[in-house]
């Protein structure tokens, strides 16, 4: 088993899937010479050539539109939209085309596009490069949303995405890359199914649902809380759509308490959806209000002092847990 970071794990996943299936192609800015800003596409141009690793002009609507058209006619494009914040540029492709084409046509076409975007705060990139946009994406019906917290998960989930017959978005968190998070990644091939949560730590007092960055903050908090005698269970859904309700609800049945720990402004967040599901389907098991530990309802600020305040972190979680139990 090798210790890999996100970039390497992602690069491996893409290379393996491109070898496995000649219909997988890459469309994006800077994928050729520098393998996209952080190197996740590095080497692929040399290995697979100009027809399969395609540098594009700065044209997110063209990238996404072309990915849709290519997918509908038999390819499996990766549409690299550098940052999730840029998804608005091809917002119509997201809302009206990619996710509706199959349905509108009565199910005749498949649209197996995998979008790949950096997401998340913590790298001092300010408001236009730091959003996860989970809630925004969840409200777009028809898109499967992947938000891995470890390189191991990233690789297995991305490989599944590339075999999916439906639109998927794979969000990889820049702060986790910057922190140098690594996983043991086996040499043998593996995939992780979309829609299967992973319990990153077992516990009995409070269920904490966390994704990507907040998983790591939750795990750190868990240690501190353990010392105070509080045991939290960290559930990482790994995909927001489809959402593994069952695992979340089973955990709540056990703990009786839920905190959703989500790095985005609270209003309209993924945390809202998860809270709403539990408030409906596991109401009888709840012993306390459902809490959301989210970012404030503001854009992401630049200054480290402000950004660190903005990001919901272990301190915020510890506070919320302590109040709840």
């Amino acid at each position, binding site marked *: 088993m090798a210790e890999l970071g996100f970039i390497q794990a992602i690069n491996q996943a893409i290379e393996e899937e491109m070898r496995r299936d000649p219909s997988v192609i890459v469309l994006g800015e800077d994928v050729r010479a520098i393998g996209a800003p952080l190197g996740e596409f590095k080497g692929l141009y040399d290995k697979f050539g100009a027809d*399969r690793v395609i540098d594009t002009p700065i044209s997110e*609507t063209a990238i996404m539109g072309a990915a849709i058209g290519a997918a509908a*006619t038999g390819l499996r494009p990766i549409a690299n939209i550098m940052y999730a914040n840029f998804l608005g540029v091809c917002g119509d492709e997201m809302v009206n085309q990619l996710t509706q084409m199959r349905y509108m046509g009565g199910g005749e076409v498949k649209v197996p596009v995998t979008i790949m975007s950096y997401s998340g705060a913590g790298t001092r990139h300010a408001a236009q490069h730091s959003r996860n946009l989970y809630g925004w994406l969840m409200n777009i019906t028809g898109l499967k949303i992947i938000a891995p917290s470890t390189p191991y998960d990233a690789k297995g989930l991305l490989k599944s995405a590339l075999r999916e017959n439906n639109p998927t978005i794979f969000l990889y968190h820049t702060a986790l890359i910057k922190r140098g998070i690594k996983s043991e990644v086996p040499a043998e091939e593996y995939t992780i199914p979309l829609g299967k949560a992973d319990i990153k730590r077992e516990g009995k007092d409070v269920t904490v649902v966390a994704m990507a960055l907040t998983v790591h903050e939750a795990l750190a908090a868990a240690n501190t809380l353990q010392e105070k005698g509080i045991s939290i269970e960290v559930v990482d859904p790994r995909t927001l759509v489809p959402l593994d309700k069952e695992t979340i609800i089973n955990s709540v049945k056990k703990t009786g308490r839920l905190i959703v720990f989500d790095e985005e402004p609270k209003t309209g967040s993924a945390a809202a959806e998860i809270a709403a599901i539990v408030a409906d389907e596991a109401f009888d098991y709840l012993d306390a209000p459902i809490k959301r530990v989210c970012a404030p309802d503001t854009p992401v600020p630049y200054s480290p002092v402000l950004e660190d305040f903005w990001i919901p972190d272990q301190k915020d979680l510890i506070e919320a847990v302590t109040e709840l139990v």
Partner: protein
Amino acid sequence: MTIGTIDRELALPLKIEKLEDLYRTMLRIRVFEERVLKEFGRGKIPCHAHLYIGQEAIATGACAALRADDYIISNHRGHGHLIAKGGKTDRMMAELFGKKTGYCKGKGGSMHCADVKLGILGANGIVGAGITIAGGAALTAKVKKTGQVCLCFFGDGASNTSRFHEGINFASVLKLPVVYILENNQYAISVPIKYAANITNLADRAAAYGIPGKTIDGNDVLGVYEAVKEAVARARRGEGPSIIEGKTYRWAGHYTSDPQNYVSKETIEQWKTKDPLPRFKGFLMENAVLSEEQIESIHQEIADEIESAVKFADDSPFPAPEETLEDVYA
């Protein structure tokens, strides 16, 4: 560009069947659309539709230049494109009626008809959106080396949208086999193109991408055929995209309930004198391609076809309500 005449030279190399087919297709579109207007009025079609009446020569001439396996991308004014690419009028009518036998099983309606087996990748309710999608179909053809071409239909209004620029630049950079058919029917709903763009010939925008652009008479079916044939050949040779702008007019207004108050009566009347159908019919008769009787029989044939399309639509069942839940994911 000449409006009003038809170039005999263009017709000579064509087989009689091909000429006859051009006429039949234009007529099929015309009669279909007139019937849509009527069925909308009768409440059989629950949402207004954007009719192609007056523009028949463009879709017909353009699609006649294609192979059966080539692709087309259509827009909100799509019935003509679909019919020209071989779309079945019965399944189209059924879709407009919201029936289960329609092209989208009733899910899409007028603006979303698609038939991938015929190369019809879909109409689109978002103006301009098809332009980038066309590049994707062409990319598949390029990557898989199939020799297919994608025709992409859109209007003058769409030529002002973001996707026009990104989509065509992208295709020009990658030398994708797309032919953009810009149907300049003078208006985008109520906004005249002479207000919405500062130039006269929109095909001149091709120069921004280093590709050929040509403005032609969109009501001359042979002229359209010829121009598109050349562009398609170029695309198939791997030399990249072209833009062909056909000047034309939409007689019935923007959609089935548009009184067109913003257009002068004269303008409409003037365009009606350029009706592509009688114009081509005159040509066919003058050149003894078809006799009066033959034309008569084509008219009868089409009338029957559309009549039975309506009957098919009428007789078909609505989808079951729960079908709403199907077809989101593959």
